[in-house]
């Protein structure tokens, strides 16, 4: 069964007052992760396939072609895992 660990290399809080969270996808799975996310989330803005402004269930986040995403105003790790699972797995 596919799990978040199959897609996610690591999750790290950013250094700064913003308290954002950066999710880095595994190199070999990043294209698949990006494709899955773009299928489920609503696209607000896009620049040359490098940076995507997206929303999902009221959460806004940015996705990068290099295989990273910045999530904002996430309550806690459980909330983030739930969102990532919905975006990547289901």
């Amino acid at each position, binding site marked *: 069964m596919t799990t978040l660990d199959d897609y996610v290399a690591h999750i790290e809080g*950013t*250094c*700064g*007052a*913003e308290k*954002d969270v*950066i999710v880095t996808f595994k190199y070999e799975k990043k294209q698949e992760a990006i494709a899955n996310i773009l299928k489920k989330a609503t696209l607000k*803005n896009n*620049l*040359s396939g*490098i*940076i995507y*402004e997206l929303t999902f269930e009221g959460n806004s986040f*940015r996705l*990068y*072609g*290099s295989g*990273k995403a*910045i999530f904002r105003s996430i309550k806690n790790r459980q909330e983030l895992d739930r969102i990532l699972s919905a975006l990547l797995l289901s």
Partner: protein
Amino acid sequence: MFDPHKVREDFPILKRKVNGHPLIYFDNAASTQKPRQVIDAEVNFYQNHNANVHRAVHSLSQEATELFEGARKTVSAFIGAKDTAEIIFTRGTTEAINLVAYSWGLRNLNAGDEVVLSLMEHHSNIVPWEIISKIAGFSIKYCNVHPDGTLDYADFESKINKHTKFVSLSHVSNVSGVVNDVKRIAKITHERGALMLVDGAQSVPHLPIDVTDLDVDFLAFSGHKMLGPTGIGALYGKKSLLETMEPWQGGGEMIKEVTYNAKSERCGTSWNDPPWKFEAGTPNIAGAVALAEAVKYLQKLGMLEVFLYEKMLTEYAESRLRSCCTKLELYGTTDPSLKCGIIPFGVAGLSSHDVALFLDNYGIMIRSGFHCAQPLHQVFKLQSSARASFYVYNTEAEVDRFVDVLKEMEQF
């Protein structure tokens, strides 16, 4: 004539691509890349000379000791120390500052005493003093910083008084690149009877340094920010002070004798001389040897040339950013006479991490966040900042590419 293209040939990593683009490394204030000569020195040590230093009588140990103590001599000359005993090898700037805080601070600072720091300090020059102030009971005063990131010298003078026993300030801000007049600060500090430590993490790699001329009591710096390996750095301390200080870590190398007294059923100890008194345990020998190679590399380039080249590159970058990027804001002073090769900036509507991730897509490495200097971000009223920082292998062509990518990002 300083030629960055010739310099670049010595750095194997600069030939690689990141995310399909040639690597542009603008995160030099965090750590620098290593030239072949430094990498070879470390490999050569392990392949041909590896043994523990001091005390052993065998040939290999003597070779290792000669290389290690030779490295101390090289580092000592690089910063203009009068005596090689004034150079203590540490893991880096952080450990060097902690050494002074615990060894000198804990034994000399008491309730009623004051230590003066500034709001532009890296956390490594704040936290050790805050920790030991809770143990020893002394106070800490923070010197203000102007909105442009320069030190408020009038505020500094007002905060140093008869209770001040110690001043610890950075030479160059790791966020703004502002260069503090540490010679002036040291003079004022000494006139008031206090001692001064300079955090040289961002100055020793980029400026000509002469501790004798600056007349500072301690200078801390890191090898990895000046082309050397990680895990090695140094503390310079005036010999007369080091001789009076107690060790802060115990173990091998730092003792003269450990004798068991059967009557008291305890061991008596006597300390080695400086610098070994402060180097408990087996040191990072290969790291020190490779650091010396990095020093020799910089000496060959010439520190004045290094400084002037970075200054030119910073001025060029700031001027291109100002003229080409409409949504970009440069933080801190842009007066070239007050700063060296660090550019803090932001892009309207994007967080510093967005900026860093966008540039990363194009193989351009910059830093984002607080850069371990949260109080200065409070002064600047910023959530975080993006930071480009240059070194000897960066070029105008790289700056042009950086500006082009930022211009593209502004369309988002």
